[in-house]
């Protein structure tokens, strides 16, 4: 059963990794403006080929 302790440690480390990723994204300003990225993605870039 002691293997559970190991598994628990691994799972918490993975979850902790996501927590750190979340902190990183917040720190990066991803949650400051949630409106513009949703618009920005719809713009076409004229320099590239449109034949996709």
């Amino acid at each position, binding site marked *: *059963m*002691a293997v*559970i*302790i190991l598994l*628990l440690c691994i799972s*918490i480390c993975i*979850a*902790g990794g*996501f*927590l750190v990723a*979340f*902190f990183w994204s*917040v*720190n990066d*300003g991803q*949650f*400051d*403006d*949630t*409106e*513009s990225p949703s*618009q*920005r993605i*719809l*713009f076409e870039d*004229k320099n590239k080929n449109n034949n996709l």
Partner: protein
Amino acid sequence: MANKQNISKPVVNCYHCGDLCTTQNVSVGEKYFCCHGCKSVYELLNENELCDYYALNKFPGQVQKRESRKDKYDFLENVEIQHKLIDFQSDGQTHITFYLPQIHCSSCLWLLENLYKIMPGIISSRVNFTKKEVFIAFNSKDISLRQLVETLANIGYEPYLSLNDLSSNARPKTDRSRWYKIGLAGFCFGNIMMMSLAEYLDFSKLIEPKISIFFKVFSLLLSIPVLFYAASEFFVSAWNGLKNKYINIDLPVSIALVITFLRSIYEISNGISNGYLDSLSGIVFFMLIGRWLQSRTYQTIAFDRDYKSFFPIALNVIKDNIIIPVEISDIKEGDIIQIHSNEIIPVDAILSKGKAKIDYSFVSGESLPIALNVGELVYAGGRQIGGILELLVVKEVSQSYLTNLWNNPVFSKDKGIKESNFDIIGKYFTYFVLFVGFLAGFYWYLNGKEQLMWNAITSVLIVACPCALLLSTNFTYGNIVRIFGLNKFYLKSPEIIESLSKIKHIVFDKTGTLTQNSDSDVRYIGTVLSAERRHQLASLLQHSAHPASKMVLSYLNEKGLSFVNHFKEIEGNGIEGWIDECHIKLGSPSFVGGSFDVNKSGTKVVVSIDGKIIGDFVISNKYRNGMDKLIQRLKQQFSVSLISGDNANELINIEKLFGKESAVYFNQSPEEKLQYIQKLQMNNEIVMMVGDGLNDAGALKQSDIGIVVSDTNNNFTPASDGVIDATKLNNLVDFIRFATIGRKIIIFSFLISVVYNLIGLKYAMQGVLSPMIAAILMPLSSITIIFITYGMSEFFAKKCKLK
């Protein structure tokens, strides 16, 4: 003006801004424009192959009718001012953030992020849509700050530069701590729950004691950051409340959190159970989400503007025949300043040169501009309409007539700390819980069961955490603010909803609030004018630049005018002249000597031909649509009064609107408006002020709720508690009704949470509250509350026709 009724032509919308084109002379190919400003923006974009701007949205632009002068941005060459505006500067790169109130659609976003195509010196630009800001990195060797601002102005996005930018040098950093807290609490909550679940489901005790201890220690470690970091704001707020000698709802919450934590340590260390750490972190997690929902207000709208935001950054000062731009705070008494058309005069000054036509609607609420002669005093806050002026400064910005209003003590104190109803409920709740806890403890003490006594006291304190009450207020108010926002009624903070539901008296301003600023009605009363007469009047009127003359002229709508002999204009009074052997006099009743219909109210231009009065042109304010209905509905529930800085010309119309029994005041100075609100409040009335201009600023601040009516989203509004779009003013009654319902929703959901609390209390008083029961009751009550508050507020929003 309302009088451009050229119905014969087909309707053509401006390709740039979508306004109706009055002529079809301004065009490029098949594309028509309402003015040359709009056309030049199009041409500029077309040259740079940026016409996708028009493809993304229909009529994305803003009307460009107001022409700007060339030297408007001279002051941006001043290095000191530059430094105050710029965020960061190194050898090649300069970073700056502008506030562009015009940003409203994806076209704006697209164009502003493609700025580098127009100006090669721009390295990159990035829009923050929520804040209506654009961050620009540019190469200061290639372009200057001034060129950058001018380019933005040329494409229709004139940056809003104000004194406030200068005074608060460091931009307030966006507070992201709540995100960290929610993330952390959620993470710990999930993991602690996972480990506790094993204990709960381990009925036949399969887990080895070693592993069980590991679980417990691990949960304890995880709960430490939750209590000390994520939950810190509850402790801080409770402590602040205590310091100010009042108990707020965060106090019982804090007590419950601390006791839960201590008891959990005790139970874990004595091997009794695995503690209540899962419930603890869960509660913190839900409460933080609630707080976040409630605090999501409107970043784009500044609710705390004072006069500084309305004034320009710099003025042109004339020294020894040289014009230099000087920062406004450096302007001294005795300086000679130059004011251009459409600029706001920020100081009290004496007119020394030029024809002044000052629009004081900003300050006093008067709807028509006033003509002033050389030597007369011009007050700060007026806007010059017409040509260039030279003025001698009498009082500096901080001392002027207008800014004096801000020295009133109202502006230095915060409306802030008021005990809300729910704080009061929270207080009694705390007393009740303490009482019950000790009662239970006392009972077990008498029975000689000391262990159970401690159990009971702590459990009661844990169970009775008023987090459900907190959740219900947070979620309900958060959702109401959101629904209001969808209806273009933007509140500064959710606490205002509670005050909104207690309103007794509503005070209106007239000009700009009940009436439209940009529009007036012209009517003619008198002997019917023949076509020839109309032609004569128009010929005379075209020589006068007075706004009243212009309104009448555009009402007459005549073309090809004839010659006037012996034209004479008495500034601010009227005009006279000879046309076709007729002596025509036009002007105010005092100038002409009487009027056709003395009983009619409104500003009048009286017509007299060869000394005989034949009729009046009555210029009256145009009321917003639906105001009569709104006042009628409001009067059924509240006292309503009107306080205006304008003269009593409109009295008859106002009485029709408000009825004879309502209080109506005219010619009120900004201070008098403030005092009137104070007087009402002394009679224990809860007052809402609905206004629009700087002249209402004092009253808005003094009132319990100050609401500003705004014609466009980017209109500059004085400090207030809420901004309402002019088209939605009709719904004011619905908004108030919905706020009242919101209070009832909270009370209802609170009652439900009390039921949960009572169930918990039953276990707690017996001293047998197990961690598992707590872990079931806690999320169940939280989720019920969330569903009830959300569902009910959506349902009633539909009923109030706000959805």
